[in-house]
């Protein structure tokens, strides 16, 4: 039987990266995710697997330490919360330009600015549309449970190295701070230096006489070459869109109305689905697990079946834009969100769904 523990989301991702064979964590503390580094230090990773854990002098330093570790073919990561992730955007863009794999975790808190330490989902645009400069995408995984915080550590590293891309786990204060049951896997061994040379011929592992120098840079001043670099990047993003979409459907088979929500909002909507079904409303939930690539095709399919979609996020309406693009006007799409660290309640979101789609319709009929 698998080992089971009660853990906070932040502790689960920390245990997850240790067991996924992570080589290095570089970070700077910020609420509500400081437990990640605390857990790593308390678990003596150096003795357990040899993994390095380092508190950098700032978020900007952390992301560039990640850049260096990734350039040498290591499994490396950082984590932070919204204001800290903003500071890292330059480094993330440089990693996109050099196709360096890494794992990032944003435990989102309310913004803008220092905002609040309470949970929010207002960093969707930053994560999914590219928070740094240039034409790039990251794979964005949205955990909705503590188990997924754990699982996405290993999955994140796998995807990062499979596609040579940055993978962001987009969590929030609620997922990070709550405790749930977690099933743990066996330890994945860290790569040896020899394995890294063999697995990642692009990495800066030290030049040998039998190969050319590996240069890791995002700079090419020749526009013709730079366009080719960019086209290749776009080809990769396209390939990811075709192959890596992940989502979960709950009670969608006969649904007439649909919630679309990710992360902690999806948990609230799951309860709202149960409450709605108990009232006789045929409502379902589509939960995107990958935010890039987005489950566009699945939403387009569901648009042929349902009468309306309600996108629920703890933001002023960010993901709703992708829902609207996906259904392309086929059905009405509305948004409901709470801001500044307020978490909506299940009956609150169900009421909104009824107000927006069901009660209005009844009014129309009586006219």
């Amino acid at each position: 039987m698998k080992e089971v523990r009660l853990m906070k989301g932040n502790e689960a991702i920390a245990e997850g990266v240790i067991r996924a064979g992570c080589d290095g964590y570089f970070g700077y503390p910020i609420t509500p995710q400081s437990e990640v580094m605390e857990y790593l230090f308390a678990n003596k990773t150096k003795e357990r697997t040899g993994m390095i854990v380092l508190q950098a002098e700032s978020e900007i330093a952390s992301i560039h330490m990640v850049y260096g570790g990734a350039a040498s073919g290591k499994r490396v990561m950082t984590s932070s919360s919204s204001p800290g992730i903003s500071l890292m955007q330059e480094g993330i863009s440089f990693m996109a330009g050099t196709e360096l794999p890494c794992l990032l975790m944003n435990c989102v808190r309310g913004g803008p600015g220092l905002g609040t330490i309470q949970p929010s989902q207002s960093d969707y645009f930053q994560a999914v549309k590219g928070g740094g400069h240039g034409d790039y995408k990251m794979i964005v995984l949205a955990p909705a449970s503590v188990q997924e915080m754990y699982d996405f550590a290993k999955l994140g590293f796998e995807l990062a190295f499979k596609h040579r891309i940055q993978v962001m786990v987009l969590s929030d204060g609620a997922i990070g701070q709550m405790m749930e049951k977690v099933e743990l896997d066996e330890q994945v061994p860290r790569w040896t230096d020899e394995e890294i040379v063999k697995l990642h011929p692009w990495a800066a592992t030290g030049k040998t006489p039998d190969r050319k120098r590996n240069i890791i840079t995002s700079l090419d001043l020749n526009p013709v070459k730079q366009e080719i670099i960019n086209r290749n990047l776009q080809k990769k993003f396209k390939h990811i869109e075709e192959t890596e979409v992940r989502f979960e459907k709950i009670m969608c088979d006969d649904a007439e109305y649909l919630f679309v929500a990710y992360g902690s909002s999806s948990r609230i909507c799951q309860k709202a689905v149960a409450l709605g079904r108990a009232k006789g409303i045929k409502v379902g939930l589509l939960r995107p697990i990958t935010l890039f690539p987005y489950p566009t095709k699945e939403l387009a399919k569901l648009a042929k079946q349902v009468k309306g979609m309600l996108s629920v996020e703890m933001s002023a309406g960010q993901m709703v834009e992708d829902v609207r693009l996906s259904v392309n006007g086929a059905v009405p799409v509305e948004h409901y969100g709470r801001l500044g660290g307020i978490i909506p309640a299940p009956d609150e979101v169900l009421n909104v769904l009824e107000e927006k789609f069901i009660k209005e319709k009844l009014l129309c009929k009586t006219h």
Partner: protein
Amino acid sequence: MTEEIIIAGFGGQGVLSMGKILAYSGMMQNKEVSWFPSYGPEMRGGTANVTVIISDERISSPILNWFDTAIILNQQSMDKFENSVKKGGILIYDPNGITRHPVRTDINIYTINAADESARLGSAKVFNMIILGAFLKLKPLIGAEYMRKGLEKSLPARHHNMIPENERAIDIGKSLVKQTYKLN
């Protein structure tokens, strides 16, 4: 079975750790559990609350606004959560420091004099276990052997010598809980 609980009081009363012991014990009994704290600026003397859900099924929302049981340990929490108990649900509170007692007539209300009792025992640390005992008397969801396992898992090894004292406090809580309003 799904039991949705809010525990609310002052920081330092052991609200979060009581919730953790409850959740861990539920997990040891093979239930699905979730523990969602208020976090952040709250500290000793401030308010703290935690939502604990224990269920036989996969838990949907860990964040709720209606509860089967509210365990209330100070006046601010009474003001905030009395109206969050589901109709027919239960409210357990320690009357110590309560100036406005609950007035709902559509729920069952109980008191537990845990502050007085822990003072009498000379051990403020067992306050929250007396409260937990009161809850377990009214909602016997978790067997004593699983409570022990939960205590073992939640307390660091250096505090395992205190487990028998905690178990005694749970029993005291079970015997001291009193009903003050009975729903017809």
